[in-house]
């Protein structure tokens, strides 16, 4: 706007002054509640976080890492300072030690005369521990030898492994053994273990995961036997170990106060006020739809604030409850012999306050919830500072169940916030609709038609806003945050994820694989066009043939993946047999990094050929027959007709098939998930699978969102390109 214009805009005719004032007043009325909302949201968010921070956050996690490395260092120091290096029997209570070479052969044993430790270096567990020790990580393990619990230390010495049996006398170690049991080896095996430092109750943290994730740094799970228990966390399929919760006794769990009620009340009040005022000012407005669209805009901030607030709050609570649910599930699992440790034992093991405590009064206080489970025997506080309640239900004699309850306040607050967000969304839609209706009545359109139209569109529009538009924005927001489901703290990290992406080799591998995979599209198109031409004639049974080609595309992709995986079997599969019978192969197909992606592409061709054929058929049938007849009269052969008529006239169809198929191929997931899980050696790791893994296996939802936005940008660019090249023309004919 030029200077003169801006002056002019301030010097409006007097007739408009009243409405301008009204408008200003209205904006104030909207702006004030907005500020209140945002402030309230900030307050609740910061309050919730502040309450959680002392217990779980990244700094604490780092402190925990330091704590453990300190523990380890002092342990090593203790060892090395002793006169009889590497182990000082008098201080550590070593009963026996055996020196193995790295392959597990016994080199020497002390004291002389005793047989070497009855370990099985060939076993997976011992091998893992050996390997960890060989890489410089002193490992302490708990095992049972001759029916007794023992500590076993694996210590690296000059390329050999010294295995020392340590004296045990503390009673809880038996429990600890049962709690840890198989876990140490598994942790080391998967390379991801989590331990939690001094003064913590329960938690899991990404920083710790990260620090323990690689063998590059020495790792050690130094667990002192009196106050620690570990609970493994598996993924949703109970298949892979994701980490572990380590439970440590604390003197008193810090209380986590619920958010105070007044910001919530303020929120509701502000919401109601906004609605009422905007409605009233709406009634007084006399100007056109422009203002109403501004009203809609003005309502956006409070909507976003409310949604954001709701999300923050939901996350604080759902993260905590997720962690606890996992823990409850683990505890239920841990009841099963032979690894089992009962919750009561666990409680005794880690101290009386933290994990499970018998408290009959709770049954009375939450009798409603409990009455649904008449078999409830015990109830107790669990985990995060008594915000959750857990109780055991004896379903059968064999298996107990842990049920977690949430305090009612939390649920109701969440509900209120979501209704508030929903209310604002509805309000915004309502304002837009109202504006549209006013505009309709002004411009002489039929009002009842417009009313009817909005009533038709409203359900779709609301669903679209809530489950597509809002998530898109939310994903963008997520990509700037560290967002771990299990960690309540979701710090803002700016562009870090995007910077990290540029240096993430695995991401680029996935991108490259996706690009290579999408090359199946042109191959399929050539075949599909051929088949379409072949079947573009009225012969008997052509419909059946078309159906046969189309069949793979509509059937279950998971079933197809399983079948093809079986056909690709290098030893007993159909492909190698057929190829072998003509003297080719055998090929490793899915088992080798060099052929796995190709195998997926072959399957993709088979699946998509029918889909593309159908579209090509439509394109072919839109070509007027007269053109061919004229060409035949002119003496053009089949190839020439194809070249001069079919191909040029099919160009829009071809282009459409290409673009949509490439976009589709960028989003391949099911085949990879079922057949290869991205392997072998990331050879079939594609973008969407990579995003899935990061979000749901490594729980890095922020980072995964950044990746998904990159993918979105690429697809968006391709789509724009499509529109550019096709122009506004949408039909091929």
């Amino acid at each position, binding site marked *: 706007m030029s200077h003169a214009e801006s002056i002019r805009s301030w010097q409006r005719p007097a007739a408009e002054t009243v409405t301008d004032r009204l408008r200003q007043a209205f904006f104030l009325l909207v702006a004030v509640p907005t500020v209140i909302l945002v402030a309230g949201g900030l307050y609740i968010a910061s309050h919730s976080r502040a309450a959680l921070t002392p217990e779980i956050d990244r700094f604490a996690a780092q402190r925990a890492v330091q704590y453990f490395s300190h523990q380890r260092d002092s342990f090593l120091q203790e060892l090395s300072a002793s006169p009889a290096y590497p182990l000082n029997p008098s201080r550590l209570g070593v009963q026996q030690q055996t020196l193995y070479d790295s392959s597990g052969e016994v080199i020497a044993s002390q004291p002389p005369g005793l047989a070497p430790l009855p370990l099985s270096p060939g076993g997976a567990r011992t091998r893992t521990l050996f390997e960890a020790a060989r890489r410089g990580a002193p490992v302490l393990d708990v095992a049972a030898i001759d029916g007794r619990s023992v500590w076993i230390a694996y210590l690296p010495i000059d390329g050999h492994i010294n295995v020392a049996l340590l004296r045990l006398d503390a009673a809880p170690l038996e429990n600890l053994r049962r709690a840890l049991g198989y876990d140490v080896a598994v942790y080391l095996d998967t390379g991801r273990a989590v331990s939690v430092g001094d003064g913590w109750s329960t938690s899991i943290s990404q920083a710790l995961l990260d620090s323990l994730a690689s063998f590059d740094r020495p790792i050690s799970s130094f667990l002192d036997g009196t106050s620690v228990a570990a609970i493994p966390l598996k993924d949703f399929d109970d298949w892979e170990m994701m980490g572990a919760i380590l439970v440590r006794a604390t003197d008193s769990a810090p209380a986590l106060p619920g958010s105070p009620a007044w910001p919530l009340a303020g929120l509701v009040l502000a919401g109601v006020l906004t609605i009422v005022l905007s409605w009233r000012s709406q009634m007084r407005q006399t100007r056109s739809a422009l203002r109403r669209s501004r009203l809609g805009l003005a309502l956006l901030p409070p909507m976003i604030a409310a949604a954001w607030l709701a999300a923050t709050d939901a996350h604080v609570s759902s993260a905590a409850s997720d962690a606890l649910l996992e823990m409850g599930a683990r505890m239920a699992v841990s009841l099963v012999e032979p690894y089992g440790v009962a919750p009561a034992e666990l409680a005794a093991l880690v101290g009386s306050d933290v994990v499970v405590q018998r408290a009959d009064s709770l049954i009375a206080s939450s009798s409603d919830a409990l009455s649904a489970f008449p078999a409830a025997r015990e109830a107790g506080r669990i985990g995060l500072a008594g915000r959750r309640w857990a109780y055991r239900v004896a379903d059968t004699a064999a298996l107990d169940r842990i049920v977690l309850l949430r305090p009612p306040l939390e649920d109701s607050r969440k509900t209120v916030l979501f209704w508030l967000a929903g209310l604002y969304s509805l309000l915004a839609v309502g304002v837009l609709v109202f504006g549209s209706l006013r505009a309709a009545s002004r411009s002489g359109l039929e009002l009842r038609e417009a009313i009817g139209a909005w009533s038709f569109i409203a359900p779709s529009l609301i669903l*679209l806003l809530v489950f597509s538009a809002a998530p898109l924005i939310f994903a963008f927001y997520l990509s700037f945050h560290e967002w771990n489901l299990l960690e309540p703290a979701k710090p803002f990290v700016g562009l870090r994820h995007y910077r990290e992406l540029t240096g993430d080799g695995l991401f680029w591998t996935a991108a490259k694989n996706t690009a290579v995979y999408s090359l199946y599209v042109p191959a399929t198109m050539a075949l599909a066009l051929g088949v379409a031409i072949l079947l573009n004639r009225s012969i008997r049974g052509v419909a059946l043939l078309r159906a046969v080609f189309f069949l793979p595309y509509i059937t279950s992709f998971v079933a197809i993946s399983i079948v093809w995986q079986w056909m690709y079997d290098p030893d007993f599969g159909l492909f190698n047999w057929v190829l072998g019978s003509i003297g080719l192969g055998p090929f490793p197909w899915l088992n080798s990094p060099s052929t796995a992606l190709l195998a997926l592409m072959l399957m993709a061709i088979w699946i998509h050929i029918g889909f593309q054929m159908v579209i090509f058929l439509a394109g072919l049938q839109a070509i007027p027959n007269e053109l061919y007849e004229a060409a035949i009269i002119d003496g053009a052969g089949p190839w020439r007709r194809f070249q001069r008529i079919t191909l040029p006239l099919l160009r829009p169809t071809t282009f459409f098939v290409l673009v949509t198929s490439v976009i589709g191929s960028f989003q391949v997931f099911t085949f990879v998930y079922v057949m290869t899980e991205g392997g072998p050696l990331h050879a079939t790791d594609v973008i969407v699978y990579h995003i899935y893994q990061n979000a749901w296996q490594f729980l890095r939802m922020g980072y995964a969102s950044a990746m998904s936005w990159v993918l979105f940008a690429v697809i968006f660019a391709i789509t724009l390109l499509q529109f550019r090249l096709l122009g506004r023309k949408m039909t091929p004919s």
Partner: protein
Amino acid sequence: MERSSVNRPGRDLPTQAARRVDGGNFFIYALAIALGITMLLPFLWMISTSLMDEFEVYKFPPRLLPAEPLWRNYPDALSAAPFARFFLNSAIISLFIVIGQVFTAATAGYAFARLRFPGRDKVFILFLANLMVPVIVLLIPRFLIVGALGWVDTYAGLIVTELIGVWGIFLMRQYFLSLPRELEDAARIDGANEWQVFWKVALPLAKPAVATVALFSFVETWKSFLWPLIVTRSMGMRPVEVGIAAFHSLYFTNWPYQMAAAVTAVVPILLLFLFTQRYFVQGIQLAGLKY
């Protein structure tokens, strides 16, 4: 945008029966049938393996047919995991999603095609823009939203995000555009309101499009994998696709069981397809070419 300009291949089904096979067509038949059999091979192989003994499959050279069809594999495999529950889940989810998608597609499509109101084109573009967004971008936030609503591992969570299909809205709009509006106007003159016009006049005329949308949303729902995989946690909530994938990882050495499960998953869609092929082809072409 004229619908009639597209020559629907589906109409060949009844009319082609009387054609004769002449000499020139022989080669084409041979080629087409050979290709067709190649396309069917994985399905045949799947059925054959599903009837083999667990150890019979580990023979080289592979047997093409089981020595003796082992029908027991089906009940055995299907009782090894809660397949009945998987199918029930899929059926429930599909039912609600089909109803929801047909409803939203028909209403919104009708409004965009027929009714005049300020802002229509902008809203329509908003819907169209949604087609550009890959589902994976929405996945994480949707999961968090559904989680915040407490709907993880519930039918509500499986259903609610899928209730609109922009593609269906588009298809319905195209279809309504192709219909004459005289009947609707007559109904308006008779005093019907917009919803009455829609229910009593417009919608009955759009039955073919409704069938197509219903069919496609059903197949899409039945086949959907990633979202159910994420949003379900317990075995009891999994739909067929996710259930079979889990079964696959549990019984990864027993190929006959897996094949039996795969056949079971394929059969419902297959049957549906056989009876409704025409709508599939029509739908793909409508959606594909008009977009």
